[in-house]
């Protein structure tokens, strides 16, 4: 078996876009003449990889990265606009929920439809039917129309059908997320056995756990291009690191230019002192600046939350009748002190939100992390002032 099971070379896919009323007619005309569509969205660009028998490949990427398009091309549902796809074997595809099922048909009738789609004769499918029904394990519902099924039941049946035929390549797109815990385990057990028997898996999932568990290789797609390809562990970690960085960026102040363009109130800076870590009972200074698009004094909402997001305390400047100090036409400063901070040891986040002068609309969100250290064994978030009344 020297020929790879699956080869993709420079595969690209453009989707035609209809941008105006009557644009459809123009599109049909272009397609009939054999020209490509005039306006396209490039869903995939220059994607290439090979898959040997027994290898398994996980595909990761954000929504809209082109994962489903790629799987559809491998499954033969759509033809690539550019490049070459070669498959040497039977492909079993499980693309999204209940793919290929007819809602008015019973489970059994749908098994027959799927079998016909895969090219099995009624006799062949009859021999597989019991196996499928047993694996799906949905009881008497097998005689009900699919439209009365829960999404979990649809996935069970879909998985049972796709797997009963032991395809050379099994393509699954995010289907494991729907079934319940025990069915997920059953599917994963099936896939592991399938892989151990030399089966090949093309798995698309947002669960890095599934990718790491089932795939040895992974491919990271972003905006239709391959960002990284390699060992599953390495690619998934790079992907996760990218996401952490991205969500961290979101919490940095937005620039004055952006705030100006958007006409929003925005926190320009947030400084805490001490920075990063402090001892229990120390004093915490917080100060910062807020951009105001219309020169009116904004309101600042300050809050302290636990690292997991549980709110501890929050206060807005207008609640206490404080007005912000005007630095320039559109910049306002605030400063306050939490003396003898009562937070118990742990990880916290100081948050500042800019609000409009009416204190109604809440704009951005800037955060600073702080670790409170101490040897206290008290429980909870804060020390409440208290007195023990000793009887002695």
């Amino acid at each position, binding site marked *: *078996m020297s020929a790879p099971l699956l080869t993709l070379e420079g595969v690209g896919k453009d989707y035609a876009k209809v941008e105006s009323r009557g644009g459809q007619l123009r599109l049909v005309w272009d397609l*009939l003449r054999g020209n490509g569509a005039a306006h396209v969205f490039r869903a995939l660009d220059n994607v290439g990889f090979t898959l040997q028998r027994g290898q398994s490949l996980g595909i990761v990427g954000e929504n809209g990265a082109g994962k489903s398009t790629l799987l*559809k091309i491998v499954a033969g549902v759509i033809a690539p606009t550019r490049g070459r796809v*070669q498959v040497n*074997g039977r492909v079993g*595809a499980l*693309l999204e929920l209940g793919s290929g099922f007819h809602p*008015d048909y019973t489970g059994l009738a749908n098994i027959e439809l799927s079998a016909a789609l895969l*090219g099995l004769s009624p006799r062949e499918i009859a021999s597989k039917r019991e196996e499928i029904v047993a694996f799906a394990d949905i009881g008497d519902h097998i005689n009900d129309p699919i439209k009365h099924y829960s999404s979990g039941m649809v996935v069970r049946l879909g998985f049972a059908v796709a797997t009963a035929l032991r395809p050379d390549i099994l393509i699954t797109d995010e289907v494991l997320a729907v079934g319940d815990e025990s069915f997920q385990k059953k599917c994963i057990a099936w896939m592991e056995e399938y892989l151990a028997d030399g089966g090949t898996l093309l798995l698309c999932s947002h669960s890095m756990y599934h990718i790491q568990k089932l795939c040895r290789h992974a491919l990271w797609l972003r905006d239709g291009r391959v960002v990284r390809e390699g060992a599953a562990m390495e690619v998934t970690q790079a992907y996760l690191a990218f996401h952490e960085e991205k969500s961290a960026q979101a919490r940095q102040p937005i620039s004055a230019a952006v705030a100006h363009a958007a006409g929003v109130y925005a926190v320009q800076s947030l400084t805490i002192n001490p920075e990063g870590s402090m001892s229990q009972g120390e004093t915490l200074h917080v100060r910062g600046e807020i951009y105001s698009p219309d020169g009116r004094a904004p309101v600042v909402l300050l809050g302290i939350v636990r690292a997991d997001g549980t709110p501890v305390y929050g206060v807005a400047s207008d609640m206490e009748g404080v007005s912000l100090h005007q630095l320039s036409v559109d910049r306002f400063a605030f400063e306050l002190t939490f003396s003898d901070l009562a937070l118990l040891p742990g990880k916290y986040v100081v948050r500042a939100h800019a609000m409009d002068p009416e204190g109604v609309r809440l704009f951005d969100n800037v955060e600073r992390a702080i670790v409170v250290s101490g040897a206290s064994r008290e429980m909870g978030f804060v020390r409440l002032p208290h007195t023990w009344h000793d009887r002695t």
Partner: protein
Amino acid sequence: MTLQSTSAGGVVPTPSASVRDRALFINFFRRELNTRYLGSVSGFAWAFVHPLVLLVVYHFVFTTIFRTSGFGGQSFLAFVAVALWPWLAAQEGIQRAATSLAGYAGLIRKVAFPHELVVYASVAATLTLQLAGYLVVLLALVIFGEPIHLEGLLLALPLWGVMAIGIIGVAMFFAALQVFVRDVEHVLMPALMILMYLTPILYPLTLVPEVMRPWVAINPFSWIVGRLRDALLEGKLALEWGDAIAVVVALAIFFAGRWVFRRLSPHFEDFV
């Protein structure tokens, strides 16, 4: 994209495309038949009751209200019935097939299969039911003493075959277009209605003014209607040169429709 079958690893041998397509066509065909009468108590009986009821209505309208005596000694009821059912079959076949792809949207988006099977199955289901109705109507006419030559079916059935080839071509054209331009179904209904009155179904070609006659005769359906009347009303079974031309025209329509369909079908997935 090339698909090759390998025997290694597969428990079930990879089927050839034609075996698969046949199984799929049969499945779609059954599905089309079932969904038309899904939920109705008497099921397929409607396929036979409906044409008979229509026949009674036409009988009443044409012999009692309009008191038409027929043309050239023919019974008007037989004259209309012989042509009207094939027309209804063509009209329904085209209309249903034009919107048939939407019913298979889930499959088209998720599964690789030849999309034209949907149109074939839709047209085949319509024509099967309409042909059954046609035979019932002819039989009823014979029983009621109308002058029908049943041996004319020897020519009438092949005529239905020729008609089917043309209908599939037209249906494929509109079905493919409908995916991109939703107006097709709305334009199709009045257009077919107008075409019905421009076809000598309710009147003979001889009543059409001389100048307009070539324009009416150029309509392929006028030819079908004429040949059906030759066969079933007069018992003329001889083949003509025109029949060969008709077969060529039907095949041309079929291949033109299929060419358009195949050009557009790779893009169905995104628009259906």
